[in-house]
């Protein structure tokens, strides 16, 4: 192989001798700005293995190359191939491999060293195929993160490949039904509506099938596996519940178990028997009383829990569980939609708890225990909960809580008195709130919010019938409108029903309730009409209330069913200089109700505005998304 610049070697040496003769060479004098450059005498590219390998210079350079050029570099010579392969492996953080690419990928990767492969997304239809087996056998040991889509019949094969994945850290498995021709029997079953054939969990490990599985997978051990996420279609036919149980049993260092979309019950004492010293994140579909008690007994250092409680869970078991994890917990999401006897109460200190989400909670909630024991809580979400069961037994407050989202769901029809009492309790318990979301807000509730949380930055509410312009403006507009003599005409053409003295509107004189301008820090405001109800507000709210919110960045006015008001875009353009996003949704926009000159005026005044003038599709999930 050639060595660059060999011919100049003697010349170089002479030059070097000259330099080395001088005992001290002050750099400022000796360094010419563009000195004559000697030719290299020592090193050639990829030729001197010792230097190139020792210092990984080629590797450093290759990290600068895009993938296509890296693949080309592989073809230059063997050393380049070796280094390029190493860099390739590190660079390929996310690879999507389909069945047909499996063979080539396996060969490419098996040539290089044991450098971990980043994230691999595999879609294998037929795990029986030789390429799939070869893939796991050859490079399984270097895979750290695997996302695998599998068809049902491939599960047993995958189980036999698990032994090759000994360095796996994260595993995401998505299991699908086989897309094969239906047998006549299945066809009939489907037609007749009979339940699909699902091999439900077998409670006895000594069962003949289990023995078979146990022997085929003997010695399989995943010491590095930290996270498993398994999901499958609910009517999966060739279900292998043991897959998850085997994974848990073989992985003593699991930190994250996510079985949210795993519809099968796990073996009852699995959690108790498995060696899970580090389990921190637990997400499961639902937990029964017995499982909850076992979890409580194990005292896992759980940081995050996410599950639904079964109807049979006893209040005492739930308290025990919360107490056992309260010292480590950071995040809670729990649903309990059938047991009214359960109470959510933090009886012991939970110093690390940041977020509580009770997304469907029909039982009681003791706000004072949350405020008192969750010192660092920043966000609380209560959905579909009964306002009558939310109580503040002792006066406790927590100034750290910045976000609260409340939705009374089916309980929205409770008396205004109870609602008012609950909002009062919220204000007492969490006085420094910056973000508040609530469904079905009335004028009175809004008044409480405006008085109670003047520091709010985000306010998102929906309304049914109880909210009017008066709630936002603090002015009894309906009454004033009846007095025809009171009217002030604005330059934009809108009229305000307020007294006029010396051609000036006397607004403050008629304001008798708290109004929205109290929220001087508000940057994000959203109001949405519930489906099936009128949009309650008109331009009066803009001209007499919202126009004073000069810090507003985002304004959303969403109407689902009816024609919304024709909002005065000029008022928005002239009064809200910081607005960056405006969403006006109602069913009339598609008919070009807004004239071009109005929109242009708005965009000229606010050139950076992101404007969404959208016709509303009736989207049932939309109002839910708000919470």
């Amino acid at each position, binding site marked *: 192989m050639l060595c*660059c*610049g060999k011919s100049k070697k003697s010349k170089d040496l002479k030059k070097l001798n000259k330099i080395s003769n001088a005992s001290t060479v002050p750099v400022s004098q000796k360094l010419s700005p563009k*000195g004559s450059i000697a*030719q290299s005498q*020592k090193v050639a590219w990829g030729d001197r293995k010792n230097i190139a390998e020792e210092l990984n*210079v080629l590797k450093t350079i290759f990290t600068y*190359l895009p993938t296509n050029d890296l693949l080309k570099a592989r073809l*230059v010579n063997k050393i380049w*191939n070796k280094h390029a392969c190493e860099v390739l492996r590190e660079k390929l953080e996310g690879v999507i491999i389909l069945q047909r690419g499996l063979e080539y990928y396996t060969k490419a990767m098996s040539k290089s060293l044991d450098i971990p492969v980043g994230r691999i997304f595999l879609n294998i239809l037929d795990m029986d195929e030789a390429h799939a087996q070869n893939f796991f056998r050859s490079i399984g040991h270097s895979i750290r993160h695997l996302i695998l889509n599998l068809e049902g019949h491939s599960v047993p094969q995958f189980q036999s490949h698990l032994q090759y994945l000994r360095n796996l850290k994260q595993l995401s498995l998505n299991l699908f039904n086989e897309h094969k021709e239906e047998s006549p029997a299945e066809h009939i079953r489907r037609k007749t509506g009979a339940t699909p054939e699902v091999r439900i969990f077998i409670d006895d490990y000594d069962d003949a099938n289990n023995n078979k599985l146990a022997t085929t997978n003997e010695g399989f051990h995943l010491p590095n596996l930290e996270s498993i996420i398994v999901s499958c279609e609910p009517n999966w036919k060739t279900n292998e519940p043991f897959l998850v149980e085997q994974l848990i049993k073989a992985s003593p260092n699991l930190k994250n178990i996510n079985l949210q979309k795993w519809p099968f019950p796990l073996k009852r004492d699995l959690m108790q028997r498995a060696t899970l010293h580090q389990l921190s994140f637990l997400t499961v579909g639902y937990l029964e009383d017995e499982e909850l008690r076992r979890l409580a007994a194990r005292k896992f250092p759980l940081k995050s829990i996410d599950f639904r409680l079964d109807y049979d869970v006893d209040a005492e078991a739930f308290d025990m569980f919360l107490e056992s994890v309260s010292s480590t917990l950071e995040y809670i999401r729990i649903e309990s939609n059938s047991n009214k006897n359960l109470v959510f109460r933090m009886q012991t200190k939970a110093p690390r708890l940041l977020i509580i989400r009770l997304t469907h909670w029909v039982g009681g909630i003791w706000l004072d225990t949350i405020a008192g024991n969750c010192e660092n809580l920043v966000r609380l979400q209560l959905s579909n909960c009964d306002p009558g069961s939310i109580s503040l037994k002792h006066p406790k407050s927590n100034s750290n809580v910045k976000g609260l989202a409340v939705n009374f769901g089916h309980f929205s029809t409770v008396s205004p008195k109870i609602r008012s009492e609950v909002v009062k309790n919220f204000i007492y318990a969490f006085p420094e709130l910056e973000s508040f979301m609530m469904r079905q807000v009335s004028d009175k509730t809004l008044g409480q919010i405006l008085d109670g949380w003047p520091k709010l930055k985000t306010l998102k509410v929906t309304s049914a019938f109880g909210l009017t312009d008066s709630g936002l403006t603090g002015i009894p507009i309906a009454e004033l409108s009846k007095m025809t003599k009171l009217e002030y005409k604005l330059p934009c053409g809108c009229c305000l029903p307020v007294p006029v003295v010396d051609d000036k509107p006397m607004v403050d004189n008629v304001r008798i309730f708290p109004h929205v301008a109290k929220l001087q820090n508000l940057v994000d405001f959203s109001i949405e009409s519930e489906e099936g109800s009128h949009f309650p507000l008109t331009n009066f709210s803009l001209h007499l209330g919202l126009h004073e919110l000069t810090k507003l960045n985002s304004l959303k006015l969403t109407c689902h069913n009816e024609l919304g008001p024709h909002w005065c875009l000029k008022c928005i353009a002239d009064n809200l200089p910081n607005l960056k996003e405006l969403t006006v949704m109602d069913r009339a926009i598609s008919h070009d109700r807004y004239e071009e000159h109005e929109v242009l005026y708005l965009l000229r005044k606010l050139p950076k505005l992101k404007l969404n003038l959208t016709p509303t599709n009736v989207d049932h999930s939309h109002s839910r998304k708000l919470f």
Partner: protein
Amino acid sequence: MALVRVISSDGAAFLVSQRLAKRSGKLKTEIETFRKSSDNSEAQPEIRIVTIRAEILRLVLQWLQQHQNDPVLPANQNEQDGRGDAEMGQSQWDRDFLAPMDLGIVMELILAANHLEVKGLLDITCKLVESKITGRTVDEIRTAFKLKSDFKGNEEEQTRLENRWCVEN
């Protein structure tokens, strides 16, 4: 002005200001080690760089001198893909500086910049080599780097096939 003697593998000594020398991570560490071990705070540190010959060391110091007022790039900058913001630091002077060098010298300079922990120089030299690879055919790369293929039999074809999982056609 505090000075430091930097001596190349072939015995040539360069007298440079400590301020300049400290722009190299390696020299900075060496100077600090010398200070700690020396009783005389006035003594002039002497650092031997056994892996870099005089000609290359001269180039590194020359580059450092030109860039002595630049902000020091953190060594782990943009670590994810291994590159710093080479374009940003590359001036006309840098281009003139690198222009007369053949790839062998550039290679030595990369080794030296890597050893002496001079992130800016490492960036521009790697970038230069990268530009000699990007967009060229395999044969052109071999010519530019004066390399020969050492694949035997159908090994090259095999490698080409292996690339197919990622390359179109």
